[in-house]
């Protein structure tokens, strides 16, 4: 429907003024922009995912079934591997922890004591089923969200990683 609005199908009239032609262009532009605005508004409502640390999940009282990104440190000694690539580990921000279950291959830089971001669904308070665990390019890189979540709980040691510097003032 909007596609048709995009093609000015009116037959070329000899006497069409510059103003009328401009109106046709503006109408077409309006139609496409309207379509885009609609798509964006719809997608932003349905397909964005919030990022939380384990403590925030408790504080915000999120209900099971919520889709989110969970970030924090992989608790040392918490990684358990089961059959069929099933793995579970605890993500902690130093105050609260959440147990993550995941089926699949973990990224190369997944290590105990290191930062991790998992995307998936909250099953119950403190239990999280991930469908992706994010890999990072660089072992000194700490995802900024994780750094911020740790900082909030007072477990941040500046200088621990190069990249964990506070966000650029530009973003404040």
């Amino acid at each position, binding site marked *: 429907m909007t*596609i048709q609005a*995009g*093609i*000015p*199908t*009116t*037959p*070329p009239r000899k006497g*069409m003024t*510059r103003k009328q*032609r401009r109106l*046709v*262009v503006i109408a*077409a*532009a309006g139609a*496409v*922009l309207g*379509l*885009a605005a609609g*798509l*964006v508004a*719809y*997608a*932003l409502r*349905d*397909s*964005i*995912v*919030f*990022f*939380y640390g384990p403590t925030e999940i408790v504080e915000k009282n999120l209900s099971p079934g919520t889709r989110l*990104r969970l970030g924090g440190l992989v608790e040392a000694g918490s990684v358990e*591997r089961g059959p*069929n*690539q099933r793995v579970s580990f605890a993500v902690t921000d130093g105050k609260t922890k959440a147990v993550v279950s995941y089926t699949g*291959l*973990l990224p*190369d*830089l997944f290590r105990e004591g290191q930062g991790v971001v998992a*995307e998936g669904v909250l099953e119950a308070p403190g239990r999280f089923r991930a469908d992706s665990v994010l*890999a*990072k*390019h*660089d*072992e*000194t*890189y700490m*995802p*900024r*969200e994780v750094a911020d979540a740790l900082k909030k709980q007072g477990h941040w040691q500046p200088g621990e990683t*190069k*990249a964990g*510097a*506070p*966000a*650029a*003032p*530009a*973003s*404040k």
Partner: protein
Amino acid sequence: MFVEIGHFALALALGVAVVQTIVPLWGVARNDPALAAVGPAAAIACFLLVALAFGCLTMSYALSDFSVENVAANSHSTQPLIYKLTAVWGNHEGSMLLWSLILVLFGALVALSRRSLPVKLRAGTLAAQGSISVAFLSFTLLTSNPFRRLVPAPGEGQDLNPILQDLGLAIHPPLLYVGYVGFSITYAFAVAALIEGKIDAVWARAVRPWTLLAWTFLTLGIAMGSYWAYYELGWGGWWFWDPVENASLMPWLAGTALIHSTVVMEKRDALKVWTILLAILTFSLSLLGTFIVRSGVLTSVHSFASDPQRGLFILGILIAFIGGSLALFAWRAPLLKQGGLFAPVSRESALVINNLFLATACATVFIGTLYPLVLEMLTGDKISVGPPFFNATFVPLLVPLLLLLPIGQTLAWKRGDLLGAAQRAQVAFGLGVITTLAIFAFVRGGPVLAPLGIGLGVFLVAGAFWEVGERVVGRAGSASAAWSRAKGLPRSAWGTALGHAGVGLSVIGIAAVAWGTEAIGMLRVGESLTSGRYTATLEAVTPRIGPNYREEAARFRIVANGAELKPVEAMKRVYTARAMPTTEAGIRTDGLGQVYVSLGEPDGSGAIAVRLHDKPLILLIWIGALVMAVGGALSLTDRRFRLAAPRRAAASAALPQAAE
């Protein structure tokens, strides 16, 4: 020694760039040709100095001079020479130096180009380009100096990030930067036109080759980056809608719109104001991309170590150049004269629709990329906008554009015949529909969108060649007449056909991704795993030692539908210097598809996790991009861009309504 020379040369280049910015404009204002002529000389000197600086840094890497902080942090004596050299731009400081080198290279090319530009336009362009050089050279010198010494010097370097020790990295950033930075020239031309208050077909013809050049390299750079991520990261994905990927996609979309709108301007003297705005926006998006990558404000797999001071500096550059040029635009654009008229159904209108969709699609990517940042600033909530968002916004906007493409490209200038154009496209459309129906008939129960996407791709490829085909074969009686007609067509007509066919090929490759399959299993030697058409049998696991890594190499026998392919090797490496593991996927090309094997963790009892992908037709994604780039390069060699200015009028008269 080298680094001191390099540092000095870079500082000197900054001084020359300041001269390049101020003197030519002053010369134009005072009507002094001698002062205006300083521009080209300064641009060439600036390039030579930055090239010297870059050469010096490269020498320090080649000699493994670990007393240089940058070398110590990103190189290692056991690293193979090729990776010592590519490490020059495998880090923040060095890559900014490469950025600056390409920037001043473009300035020097404009200064050297034989095409005779009007004096004022050349002076203004070089001055605008010079101001960008000033900004980026100061940025490099003040916040990201690659020439800093380290006292005391360490005996050994820290090695380059292993993921970057790859030939893909050797090519990806330079290609991408030539694309990104190439748009600085179109920006400089736009600013010069605004300062002069005059814009015409001469301007369009002068700008078009630079736009095509930048676009061609950007296309290659993005494709190379995508292929590199595909084989190096071991996930088998080819596009992640990562902020940094989006940062390169946005200038590409705007640049694609720009190469189409400059055609309208060149041929028909219309869309002037819009083209100027688009030229400014395209480079602004390149700058935004640099900001996103360098500041670390958005979490991305590409982030180098971020530094707030750098982010602030680049934000300053961003505001100065985008704000400044848009203010100039608002002030001067109303002075530009209106161009030619065209009917609602015409080639011009088709290209307006092209621009409309591309610009809108670009805007949705922009929103998806920056929305998390804005939301965090406003509310403190952290969100991520992933593939679902882009699939729901970007894709629906591109599909109508692609459907209209084969019709639009056959419309005549000024006033077209929609019915005739639709009739010309109907054979191509028929081929697409037949392909879709045939696939539905043979492949049962598969994803619905894949056959539709492939039909669209076939429609695009057939439609792209239909027009040139008609012009070659349509009126020619014999094969030799057709051949001479084919040779007689302007190269840009072939370039257009290839560019559009490339889009079609990529669409087919992307649609076929839906048929890909993945299987994960724990394998011991002798055991097999099946995914799609392929069965992989683990034959042996061998430990090996490379120059700067240890690895476990797993060899797989690959059988596809009873026929055996050559074996595949997948590796799990540990780079010694950083103790960092990487996965090297084993890939075997089978026709246009690939079988892709990557390794996970061993379970400790002799079995190892294996991921096996069947990726049908996946190569078409990158082949399509390659074909697009070849199309761009072919258009670039079109004779009208090679002719000197005095013959311009004759040339355009000889090519009435040449297709783009």
